[in-house]
C-alpha cells in the first residue's frame, strides 16, 4: 500500500480519532496557561520585591524550573508525589507540571514588561498618593500588558506544543491517540504527519495574532 492509498482508506478514521484527543490537549493547554498566568505574575512581583525573603525563593524557583526538563518535572509530580501521599490524576499532574514550568518562563516575560515601563510612571503615580501596589495595578501593569502580549502569545504557542509530552503521564490527548493508532496500524508516517498538521492549524493563526500584536505595540491607539 502506498502512502496516498493509506490516506484514502484510513484517513478519515485517523482524523476522527486524533480529533477526539483535542479536548484533552486544549484542557491541559488552557488549564496550565491560566495557572502560569496567575502564578507567573506572583513570582515576577516577588522577584522585584524590596524584601530578600520574597526575592530569593522566587529566583530559586525560576532557576529550577527553567533549568530542568519539563518532562522531569512532570514525572516528579506524577510518579514522585504519591511517595509523599498524594496521587494526582493525569490531568492534575499535566496542568500542574506545565503550569509550574510555564510560570517560570512567564514570570520573566512579566518582569521584562514591567521593567520596560519608564520609572517616571511609577513615580508620577506615587506622587499622586497611590501606594506602590495601586500604582502597579492601575498605571504600570496596564501599560506593561501591551508590551507583554506578543511574547505571551508566543509562549502560549510553545505551551500548546509542549502538551504533547503529557501522554507520558496518561492523558489521552492528541499525541497519546496518535501513538495508539500507530500501535494498532503500524503506519507511523501518515499518522504523525496528520497530528503535526493539526497542531499547525492551531499554531499558525496564533502566530499571526502575535505578529499583529507586535506591529501594533508601538502606537497606543
Amino acid at each position, binding site marked *: 500500500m502506498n502512502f496516498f492509498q493509506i490516506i484514502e482508506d484510513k484517513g478519515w478514521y485517523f482524523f476522527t480519532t486524533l480529533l477526539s484527543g483535542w479536548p484533552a490537549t486544549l484542557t491541559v493547554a488552557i488549564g496550565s496557561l491560566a495557572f502560569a498566568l496567575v502564578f507567573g505574575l506572583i513570582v515576577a512581583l516577588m522577584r522585584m520585591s524590596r524584601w530578600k525573603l520574597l526575592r530569593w525563593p522566587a529566583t530559586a524557583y525560576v532557576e529550577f524550573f527553567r533549568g530542568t526538563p519539563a518532562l522531569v518535572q512532570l514525572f516528579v509530580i506524577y510518579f514522585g508525589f504519591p511517595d509523599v501521599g498524594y496521587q494526582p490524576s493525569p490531568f492534575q499532574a499535566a496542568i500542574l507540571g506545565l503550569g509550574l514550568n510555564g510560570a517560570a518562563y512567564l514570570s520573566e516575560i512579566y518582569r521584562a514588561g514591567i521593567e520596560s515601563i519608564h520609572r517616571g510612571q511609577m513615580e*508620577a503615580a*506615587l*506622587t499622586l*498618593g*497611590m*501606594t506602590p501596589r495601586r500604582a502597579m495595578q492601575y*498605571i504600570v501593569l496596564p*501599560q506593561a500588558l501591551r508590551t507583554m502580549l506578543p511574547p505571551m502569545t508566543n509562549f502560549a504557542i510553545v505551551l500548546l506544543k509542549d502538551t504533547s509530552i503529557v501522554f507520558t503521564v496518561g492523558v489521552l490527548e492528541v499525541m497519546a491517540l496518535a501513538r495508539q493508532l500507530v500501535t494498532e496500524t503500524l503506519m507511523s508516517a501518515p499518522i504523525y504527519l496528520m497530528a503535526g498538521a493539526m497542531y499547525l492549524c492551531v499554531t499558525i493563526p496564533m502566530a499571526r495574532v502575535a505578529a499583529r500584536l507586535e506591529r501594533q505595540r508601538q502606537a*497606543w491607539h
Partner: protein
Amino acid sequence: MSTVGSEANGRQPLLKIENLHKRFGELEVLRGVDLEVRRGEKVSIIGPSGSGKTTLLRCINYLEKPSGGHIYIDGTLIGEKKSGENYVHLSDRELARERQEIGFVFQRFNLFPHLTALGNVTIAPQRVLGLSREVAEKRGREMLQKVGLSHKVDEYPERLSGGQQQRVAIARVLAMQPKLMLFDEATSALDPELIGEVLRVMRQLADEGSTMVIVTHEIQFASEVSDRVIFMDQGRIVEQGPPKEVLFKPREPRTREFLKHIQAR
C-alpha cells in the same frame, strides 16, 4: 526642636526642612539644607546642574529617602514618624497619604499614556480619594479648563504637544487639591515656543495663592513670580532673599558667576 523661628506672622511654616542630607553612595548631593516656606509663598530655586536642587525637591515628597535630616509639612513629619526617641519610616500606605498633599510636576510630564487627558486627571481622585466617577470627572473637567485644555479632554497624551502635556500634568496635580506644589524644571523639556503657555498657567496658580516651590532656569519668570529666590550650589543653599536682590544684586560671587553664565546663553 519643634519650635518655629521668627516667622513674621508667628504661624508655623507650611514646609520646614531641617538639616537635610542626601548621599548617593560616595556622592554627597545635599549637605545640610534648612528651609522654611510659608503658606502661600512662592519660592524659586536656581543653581547649576548637580547643585542638588532637584534632589531637594524629590526629598520633600520622599521620592528620594533623605540620608539625614527631617521634613515637616504643616508640622507633620514627612516619610517617618517618631517612636520614642527614634524616627521610623512610614508604611507604604501612610507615606501615600502624606504624598496626597504634595503635588509634583515633573520635567518630563510623566503623563499616563494609556489614559486620556481626563483619565489622567481623574484616576488619582477616584482611586486614591475614592471620589465617584461623576464627581471626579466634574472636578477633572474644571481643572483641564483651568489650564486651558477643555477641548482636549478626550485626547491621549501622544496626541498632545509638550506644552499641552505639561498643562495636563499640572491639572492632574491640581485635581488632588494639594497644600504644596513642587515644580521640577517644568519647562526644561519644552520647545521654546511652548514654554510660555506652561509658565502662564504657573503664574495663574501663583496669583491664586498656591504655595509653590519651583526649581527653574527661567530667571525672568522666577523674578516676576517668586517671593523668594534661593541659589543652591554643591548641595547647600548659598544665598537667598527677594528676587530683586538675589537675581540682580547678588552678594555671593558664586551666585554672580552662575547668573552671568545663564544670561550668556
